[in-house]
């Protein structure tokens, strides 16, 4: 434990409050407040638990939901793929046997674990939150320490409610000023990753700060923290503030009444102290951030939509030049070409990065009164049944359907191409998800990451394009 007069970061404070025991070798046994489970990374952990005759230590700190592998088409039918069905049935049998709270596939609360946790108030400020999924960093938006773990660690948390961890270094990314209209949290994060690279945050926990971050709503902050892992960081965080407390207030699993006020009093103490030490600090000018899109197969391959694809010959390092060459070939792009105007086959709006009601509203604002371009397959996969329901209450589903989008059930879907929603070889997508790795959305599929606004614009024009052009004409029509 540090001397209390030493100024501490948000990360330091949450870490200190969860150290069960500091060990001689520099690792610490860290207590875990929330353990979220899904069907893909938990079965082997439960199997080991069962083999050793151990119970789940704290089912009351655990929550499970199936998301990665669930069909997002008709939910009234049984899951068709036998392997997927077995994985979901295995999760259901495990939660029953071990007494773990679970949102069933047919419940409205089902959805992507990183959407469901915050939505239900299961994920709260000041907590340590883990899940067998790298995008657990999403929950850091609440001012919690949230990170992804492997299945062996899932087993360790199930059995002991703790993890052996080494303290990470502190990194602060400040985004100061105002973002321009048409620029979103996704563009901020893509710009950050483009700047620091996919290994830029390795060994660090990133705290996002600055006036542009403070102005983001919780959905935007979640988008930001979600992709911390794409910057290589262990976790991303935003200090809790009134925006956070207002979001959390009244959520089903949040503290209620007097208990809530007491929790808020504690949460307010968590913000980074003046003068606290950061090992790394990066500052971005919000005004310089453009609507962005990736051109390659790594999330750091980011361009403003007005930009051009790099040329291998511009790189002195032969390994780097070779990677660019290989990436261009995979992506079917010409060196030096403008990224805008590249035709797309598929538009995917969804994933734990961008499937919340705010994301759907942003996409619908572009799509209202417009149609998906001929030959483009466009789909919306809401982050949860509740998001889907809320969108239907607002009439967003009509806007999407009228435009020619498929209106789907909640799940991870085409973000990772595990369920039947996949790109076929050579197909190109504009996708609001988080990874553009080779084959991520289907073997030999080509992914361009972007915001929901940009994805909707790509659906309308059939090409990657500057969404601001469409937004401006929408506003001009509105004014007329």
């Amino acid at each position, binding site marked *: 434990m540090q001397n209390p007069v030493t100024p501490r970061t948000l990360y330091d404070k949450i870490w200190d409050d969860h150290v069960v025991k500091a060990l001689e070798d520099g690792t610490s046994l860290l207590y875990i407040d929330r353990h979220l489970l899904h069907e893909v990374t938990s079965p082997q952990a439960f199997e080991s638990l069962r083999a050793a005759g151990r119970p789940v230590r704290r089912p009351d700190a655990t929550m499970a939901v199936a998301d990665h592998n669930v069909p997002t088409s008709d939910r009234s039918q049984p899951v068709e793929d036998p392997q997927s069905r077995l994985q979901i049935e295995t999760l259901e049998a495990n939660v029953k046997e071990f007494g773990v709270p679970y949102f069933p596939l047919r419940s409205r609360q089902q959805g992507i674990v990183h959407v469901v946790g915050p939505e239900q108030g299961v994920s709260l400020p000041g907590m340590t939150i883990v899940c067998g999924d790298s995008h657990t960093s999403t929950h850091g938006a609440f001012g919690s320490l949230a990170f992804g*773990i*492997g299945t062996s660690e899932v087993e360790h948390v199930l059995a002991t409610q703790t993890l052996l961890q080494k303290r990470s270094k502190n990194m602060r990314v400040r985004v100061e000023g105002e973002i321009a209209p048409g620029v979103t949290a996704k563009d901020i994060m893509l710009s950050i990753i483009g700047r620091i690279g996919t290994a830029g945050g390795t060994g660090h926990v990133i705290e996002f700060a600055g006036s542009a971050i403070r102005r983001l709503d919780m959905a935007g902050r979640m988008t930001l923290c979600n992709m911390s892992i794409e910057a290589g960081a262990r976790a991303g965080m935003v200090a809790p503030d009134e925006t956070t407390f207002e979001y959390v207030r009244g959520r089903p699993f949040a503290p209620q009444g007097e208990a809530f006020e007491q929790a808020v009093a504690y949460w307010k103490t968590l913000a980074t102290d003046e003068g606290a030490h950061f090992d790394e600090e990066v500052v971005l000018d919000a005004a310089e951030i453009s609507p962005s899109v990736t051109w390659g197969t790594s999330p750091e391959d980011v361009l403003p939509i007005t930009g051009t694809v790099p040329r291998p010959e511009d790189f002195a390092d032969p390994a780097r030049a070779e990677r660019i060459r290989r990436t261009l070939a995979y992506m079917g792009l010409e060196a030096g070409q403008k990224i805008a105007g590249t035709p797309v086959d598929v538009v995917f709006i969804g994933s734990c990065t961008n499937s919340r009601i705010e994301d759907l509203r942003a996409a619908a604002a572009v799509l209202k009164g417009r149609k998906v371009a001929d030959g483009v397959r466009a789909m919306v996969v809401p982050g949860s049944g509740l998001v889907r329901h809320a969108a239907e209450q607002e009439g967003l589903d009509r806007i999407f359907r009228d435009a020619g989008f498929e209106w789907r059930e909640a799940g991870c879907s085409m973000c990772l191409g595990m369920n039947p929603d996949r790109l076929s070889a050579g197909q190109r997508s504009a996708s609001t998800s988080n990874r553009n790795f080779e084959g991520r959305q289907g073997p030999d599929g080509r992914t361009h990451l972007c915001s929901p606004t940009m994805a909707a614009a790509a659906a309308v024009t059939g090409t990657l394009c500057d969404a601001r052009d469409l937004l401006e004409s929408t506003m001009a029509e509105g004014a007329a």
Partner: protein
Amino acid sequence: MEKFTRLTSVAAALPQENVDTDQIIPARFLKTIRRTGLGEHLFAGQRYDADGRENPDFVLNKPAYRKAGILITLDNLGCGSSREHAPWALLDFGIRCVIAPSFADIFYNNCFKNGILPIRLPREQCLALMEDASHGENARLTVDLEKQEIHRPDGEVMSFEMDPFRRQVLLEGLDDVAQTLKNHEQAIREFEARPSRAWVPSTKQPGRPQSVIGGKGEQA
């Protein structure tokens, strides 16, 4: 978990940066509820063509490297997903040691949990080992965890850094969960009883919508 002490094997070089876990094991092969059997899908995207035929140019398909026990890559190995299926697939193929200038955090961690030794070496040394690896079966490397050394075929020795705790766990093949329960149960109980912990709500709250376990829940 199998111990790791000393390994002598052919090494396969994959001279790429950012070898991500989607490359190591694509998501469509994660529909298993077991840890084993993933080796045939290791690097599936590069190892097989669209019809499932082997790509003869991919390193692990070349005769000399079909039994490689060591994999060497460039920076940021294992970036991306937390899927432990990545080390499971490596292990199932027979790879017990991975060497790179840098690793993504979660993958690095996951290796240790499965008896795979991840070694960080400066880029120049990785390139030198890749050069050794290019000689296939004529150039075996020996990795000695006890001494923290890699012995090259020409007799040269490279030493590497390793966290002492992680080293011990690998050398002895220790079970983490059993260790924690044996050594720290009392400390965990005391932590759970702290008054400052009282604010943390339960996820099992009667009347809240989650209390359906295995049931139908609210119809969407």
